[in-house]
């Protein structure tokens, strides 16, 4: 056995010292103070270094990390969906307010833009501001995420079971379905099926801006007014271009008679009698301001003058002469004349219906009837009474919000307390839904299958363009479920449409020429003409009167109140945003002792609301006006408390609603003056050559003299500005894009403004920033008040608008100057001229000196003062650039601009590029009309024409050649900036207005 040899490192090991034994198993058995804790418990140097290294590394890494945004690729990509290619699907926008047949642009499976459907015989490819903005409502944060029971989230199974059970328990009591107007035949079929299941069922329709009297006088339908066939139009308080019944349809019709042909120029003439300056009044050739209570008298006087039978009460001088003139012209245009009336007064409507018959309008200027209003005021009022009497067992509310938008909202709310089962189909927990037991949210129209019949025989479809974002179910499907029919609504719809070529219908979105599927109940109690005449002839109300009108932006019922695009869209007339106001004529404000921005309390019918004053020209001298649809309390973060709710002030009389009141009291409220968020605060044109207008007779005389062209004094005598230039012109060898805007067709409806906002990802900045004059819209519509008498005045008096002004609209976007002042002054070449005539912004390069905006004579450049995408102060107003839900609406073709960057109209360069690439793929030139800017596409009157000015065959070139030195002009031509946007002089058919006004002295008050 070998002897064990012992190796040792030191005497400690050899002698096995206790200390050595203790450390023997350590990595470093020698006593190393570095490896472990100090005796005093502090951190050792190594640990310190380790910790510091780790800490520093971790902190650095953490600060490097960018926020993670997840993009989930397709697992199985649908064949038709390509990430960079948009698909368009035909659909239909109808929220009770207005009907628009639309095409929905879909990108990566999400709808991002609404366009008009040009195949629609009703809306002809036009859109309205509200239809354009409806895309944003799909991504509204305020929408309900799913069914709710007692204000708490629930699931459909429970909710369905509970509702079925409670419906069954309703017993003999009425089961009432309260809705807005329903124009869907299949929905009505579903309702009928539901009604069959519950025998005590009643369906009550009401409109938050009622046309009940109109329906009564016309057998339950809206007559199919066709303004395109009318040479003389008389409107008694009907804002048919702005908000009345079906403005998109009417605007297109109307524009057909306003587009001026060079040879044999003809135009319709519009007489407008109204208490406040409406969009239609702004476009009228002859306009007379009358008290709201005098509108029936106008109808009576007109009836008397045309048909006979008295009605000769004097209204006011202007109105009397205008009525006489209108009657004369109506009589001379039988079969080519049309009278419309916007009041909810049965006598006036009866007279107007008779008048139209007498003028031979039926079959000429009145075609197939329209179904877009079916509400019955009396039925709703009766229901509220029944509810309060405890006779109603269940109330189902769909597509309306009676706790907010009914004049008897208080009674309705009280009545709800007596009702056993209350169900709301609202898309959010709105004022009514809050009081209901159940919220069974309806899907957004872009998530729904449905059919529509706006006009007898004209059908259209809506189809889902996205999977429902939330756990919602279409309202008719819910009804079917509760009626015991468990088919899906899609199948139900297919069955109902069995006889129609479905694929074609889905593709086109519209079906024309059918017999019509919808049936409406004629509202009873028509009036005789004689009775109407005597009723309407009664004298006007006394004292200050109030009109409650429907605004162009928000519409009635406040359905779109939570839509920031619409809230920030300036009112076409007052240019105010974000709230409603009391429009007061200047003289009356002086009498009351208030100025613009002062809060007043308006008391009518024993109720009062408080809101700020806006001094509004064009009002009848003793009339004030307020828009409905504002002042909601449960619309969502955007719409809540924007303005005041005017519905309580609506008068209820004789089973009908009158949207106004007499004997109104206005008193200054004890609230600090506010600055109204107007986008335009200077209203007159200051005797400048900015927007040009002339009259039809002058145009007929010599069309070369309707437009004024500035000349510059030179050594060789006066010369056109383009001759006096230091600039070298660009050569446009390929394309030269440009626009022509016909001021004759532009009605100021602002659809283009919202279309631009949607197309180009334009930020919403909120009320305060509009007050700070920093709205971002790339396309604005300037509205100027002009006086009929153009006498030379001093500058101070020029600033005040006339009390009864004429109005002119001018859409203004970047003029894409060929000698652009902005391009020369940018120090970093962030704004440059393209080879195709576009003035283009390179956002990445922009450092934000704002010099370009200063040097822009048109002031169309918009600066990103803040980071609208992540500054908390814009979280509510600009949610669509901030939240994951909202961002789905953004157009991926357009950069979202960063803080500190200038932006402006790009002439939809992304669309131009797309059009060129599409053409290139097919090895051809882009065709004229193939590329359309968002504004031109949205315009319901086709006032904007976009095209290639270098193409001799394009429409724009032809128009420019024709109109050269006639109606074509550039704004601020004297600067010789040579814009690519050309305007056509507005021609009024209003010589008569001059003669009427001349007779009527004292139109202007001292400043």
């Amino acid at each position, binding site marked *: 056995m070998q002897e064990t040899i012992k190796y040792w490192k030191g005497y400690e090991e050899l002698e096995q010292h206790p200390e050595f034994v203790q450390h023997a198993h350590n990595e470093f058995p020698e006593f190393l103070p570095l490896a472990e804790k100090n005796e005093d418990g502090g951190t050792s140097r190594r640990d310190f270094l380790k910790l510091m290294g780790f800490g520093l590394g971790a902190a650095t890494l953490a600060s490097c990390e960018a926020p993670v945004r997840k993009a989930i690729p397709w697992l199985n990509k649908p064949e038709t969906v390509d990430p960079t290619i948009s698909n368009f699907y035909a659909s239909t926008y109808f929220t009770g307010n207005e009907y628009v047949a639309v095409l929905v642009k879909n990108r990566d499976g999400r709808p991002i833009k609404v366009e008009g459907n040009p195949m629609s015989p009703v809306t002809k490819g036009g859109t309205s501001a509200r239809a354009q903005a409806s895309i944003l409502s799909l991504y509204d944060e305020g929408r309900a995420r799913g069914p709710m029971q007692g204000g708490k989230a629930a699931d459909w199974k429970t909710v369905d079971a509970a509702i079925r059970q409670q419906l069954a328990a309703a017993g003999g009591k009425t089961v009432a379905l309260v809705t807005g107007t329903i124009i869907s035949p299949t929905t009505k079929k579903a309702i009928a099926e539901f009604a069959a299941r519950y025998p005590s069922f009643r369906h009550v329709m009401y409109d938050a801006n009622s046309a009940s009297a109109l329906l009564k006088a016309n057998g339950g339908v809206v007559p199919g007014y066709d303004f395109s066939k009318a040479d003389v139009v008389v409107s008694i308080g009907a804002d048919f271009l702005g908000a009345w019944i079906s403005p998109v349809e009417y605007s297109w019709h109307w524009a057909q008679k306003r587009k001026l042909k060079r040879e044999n120029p003809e135009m319709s003439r519009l007489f407008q009698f109204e208490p406040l300056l409406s969009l239609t009044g702004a476009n009228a050739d002859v306009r007379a301001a009358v008290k709201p209570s005098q509108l029936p008298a106008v109808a009576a006087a007109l009836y008397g003058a045309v048909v006979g039978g008295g009605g000769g009460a004097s209204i006011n001088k202007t109105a009397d002469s205008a009525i006489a003139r209108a009657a004369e012209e109506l009589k001379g245009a039988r079969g080519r004349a049309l009278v419309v009336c916007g009041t909810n007064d049965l006598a006036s409507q009866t007279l107007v219906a008779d008048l139209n018959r007498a003028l031979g309008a039926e079959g000429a200027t009145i075609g197939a009837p329209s179904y877009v209003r079916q509400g019955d005021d009396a039925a709703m009022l009766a229901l509220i009474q029944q509810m309060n009497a405890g006779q109603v067992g269940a109330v189902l509310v769909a597509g309306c919000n009676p706790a907010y938008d009914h004049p008897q909202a208080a009674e309705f709310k009280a009545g709800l307390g007596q009702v056993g089962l209350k169900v709301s189909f609202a898309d959010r927990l709105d004022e009514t839904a809050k009081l209901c037991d159940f919220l069974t949210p309806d899907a957004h129209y872009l998530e729904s299958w449905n059919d529509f019949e706006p006009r007898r025989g004209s059908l259209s479809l809506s189809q889902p363009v996205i999977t429902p974002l939330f756990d919602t179910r279409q309202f008719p499907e819910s009804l079917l479920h509760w009626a015991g029919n468990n088919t899906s609504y899609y199948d139900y719809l297919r069955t109902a449409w069995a006889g129609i070529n479905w694929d074609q219908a889905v593709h086109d979105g519209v079906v024309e020429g059918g017999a019509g599927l919808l049936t409406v109940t004629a509202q009873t109690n028509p009036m005789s003409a004689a009775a109407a005449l005597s009723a309407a002839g009664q004298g006007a109300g006394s004292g200050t009167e109030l009109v409650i009108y429907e605004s162009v932006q928000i519409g009635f019922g406040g359905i779109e109140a939570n839509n920031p695009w619409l809230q920030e869209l300036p009112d076409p007339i007052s240019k105010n945003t974000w709230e409603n106001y009391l429009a007061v004529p200047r003289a009356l404000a002086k009498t009351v002792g208030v100025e613009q921005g002062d809060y007043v309390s308006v008391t009518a019918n024993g109720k009062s609301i408080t809101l700020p004053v806006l001094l509004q020209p064009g009002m009848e001298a003793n009339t004030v006006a307020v828009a409905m649809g504002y002042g909601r309390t449960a619309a969502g973060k955007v719409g809540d408390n924007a303005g005041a709710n005017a519905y309580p002030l609506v008068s209820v009389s004789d089973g009908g609603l009158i949207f106004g009141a007499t004997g109104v009291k206005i008193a200054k409220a004890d609230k600090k003056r506010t600055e109204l968020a107007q986008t335009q605060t200077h209203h007159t044109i200051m005797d400048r050559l900015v927007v040009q207008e002339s009259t039809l007779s002058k145009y007929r005389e010599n069309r070369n003299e309707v437009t004024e062209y500035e000349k510059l004094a030179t050594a060789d005598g006066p010369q056109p500005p383009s001759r006096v230039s230091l600039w070298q012109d660009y050569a446009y060898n390929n394309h030269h894009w440009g626009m022509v805007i016909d001021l004759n067709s532009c009605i100021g409806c602002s659809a283009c403004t919202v279309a631009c906002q949607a197309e180009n990802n334009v930020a919403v900045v909120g009320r305060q920033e509009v007050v700070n004059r920093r709205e971002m819209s790339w396309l604005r519509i300037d509205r100027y008040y002009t006086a009929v008498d153009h006498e030379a005045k001093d500058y101070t008096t020029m600033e005040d608008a006339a009390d009864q002004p004429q109005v002119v609209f001018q859409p203004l976007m970047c003029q894409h100057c060929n000698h652009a002042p902005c391009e020369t002054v940018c120090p970093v070449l962030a704004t440059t001229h393209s080879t195709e005539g576009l003035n283009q912004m390179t956002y990445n390069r922009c450092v934000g*000196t704002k010099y370009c905006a200063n040097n822009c004579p048109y002031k169309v450049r918009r600066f*990103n*003062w803040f980071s609208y995408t992540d500054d908390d102060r814009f979280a509510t107003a600009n949610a669509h650039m901030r939240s994951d839900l909202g961002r789905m609406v953004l157009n991926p073709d357009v950069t979202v601009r960063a803080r500190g960057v200038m932006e402006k109209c790009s002439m939809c360069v992304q669309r131009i590029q797309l059009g060129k690439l599409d053409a290139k793929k097919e090895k051809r030139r882009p065709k004229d009309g193939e590329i359309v800017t968002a504004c031109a596409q949205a315009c319901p009157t086709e006032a904007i024409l976009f095209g290639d000015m270098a193409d001799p065959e394009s429409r724009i070139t032809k128009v420019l050649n024709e109109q050269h030195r006639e109606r074509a002009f550039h704004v601020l031509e004297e600067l010789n900036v040579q814009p690519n946007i050309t305007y056509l002089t507005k021609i009024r058919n209003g010589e008569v207005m001059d003669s009427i006004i001349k007779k009527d002295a004292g139109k202007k008050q001292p400043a």
Partner: protein
Amino acid sequence: MVSNRFYQLKTINHQLPSTAMHYVSPLRPPLVTGAKTYHDVTHDIARHVENPPNVRWLAALVVSLLFVGIFMYSLYRTLWFGIGEWGLNKTVDWGWDITNFVWWVGIGHAGTLISAVLLLFRQKWRSSINRAAEAMTIFAVICAAMFPVIHMGRPWLALWFLPFQNTYGPLWVNFNSPLLWDVFAISTYFSVSLVFWYLGLIPDFATIRDRATGPIAKYAYAFLSFGWTGSAKHWSRYEYVSLILAGISTPLVLSVHTIVSMDFATSVIPGWHTTIFPPYFVAGAIFSGFAMVLTLMIVTRETFKLKDYITLEHIESMNIIITVTGSIVGVAYITEFFIAWYSQVPAEQYCFINRATGPYWWAYASMMTCNVVSPQLFWFRSLRRNVIFTFILSIFVNIGMWFERFVIIVTSLHRDYLPSSWVMYSPTYVEVGIFVGTMGIFMTLFLLFAKFFPVINMFEVKTILKSSSMPGVFVDEQGYALGHGGSHGNAVPAQHAVGPTAGAGAYHAPDATSH
């Protein structure tokens, strides 16, 4: 030029007869009073650098730093949230920012004018004020240069103003843009002014270095004086360089404000698009610059007891320049109105009517009162020589010139071509904070300068001591001799003064000019 003058001085010294007992009546009032010797000059000026700071200086510094604090807070809000923190809007995109910029640039004009142009014109009275005036220029330009940077939407990209090679392909600056011209004009002006100013400081730093007792001061001033020895070679080079720099600076005096005025003149905006702007802006700049020099010098001469160096002669001379330039500016204002009428351009006419009678009439009225009316009071000699009145009026001119820029920028923009875009503009507290903040920065820098740098150019004052000092003659406030001081008549003071105690130069070099 300087060397020539020195040469002449020396010649005169040689020519002086030892028996000179006659009295020479001064042709001009003396520029240095109080019978100063070379040593007095060194001592009077350097002692402020050497002594511990007094309470008033400290108090002033604390106040100035408070203003700097306001600036920092306002700047934080501007940079963190964006220039939306200001009151600008879609129509008025420049407001207080560019107003302040032009105002500060204008103030920065007097320094170079005094040091360069007056040097070339041999205006010897400039000697006792040029140092402070140049310092003021530097600080004013620093304040001014901040505005073009922070007024940008994305100031972190300010370097894109420079035509530097980059990796972005063909990206380059736009040489058509007046803003780019500004960058060149102001950076050139700033660099040249700074070099010129520093160059003049070197001999005086050397003097302080030589007198310094503490090690830090010794080291610091030794570093700052770049090893100046006062040798003839140094002086010779100094003279050449300052002559060259004066030559370079002189056109800059005209170019800077000419180019600043082109920011407006080359635009299309009525009220901006005016060919009269370059001369009018230059005159205005000199006007405001001299006013600011007066404001500062009157305070300095009171607090630092330098009345013998900054005399009433200086104040009067500057007041005369203020009257002349103020009148030029006034004529320019009237010419603008005439041209607006004569042009028959409606927008142009409206712009000027609106200036005078529109919503900003008060700004226009302030401008006219302060700039055109008030300097005319200097036609009265008693007012010209009244220090308190001059001080008040210099403040008036500064206010008036600020309003001039405000009037030009804001009243032209707020109502330009299309009435639909007409707006009002008012600043927010952030904008006001930035403006008063730059005043804090300016005052802080000036106070530091006054404490650590010689506020008066010692060696240059010494050069005029013999020719333009009134030895033994006491001078009243009007500059008239009252009688003889001293018992033995009018001995040549220089001969008394020169000696080993007379200052730094004495043991470095025999050259009298280094004192």
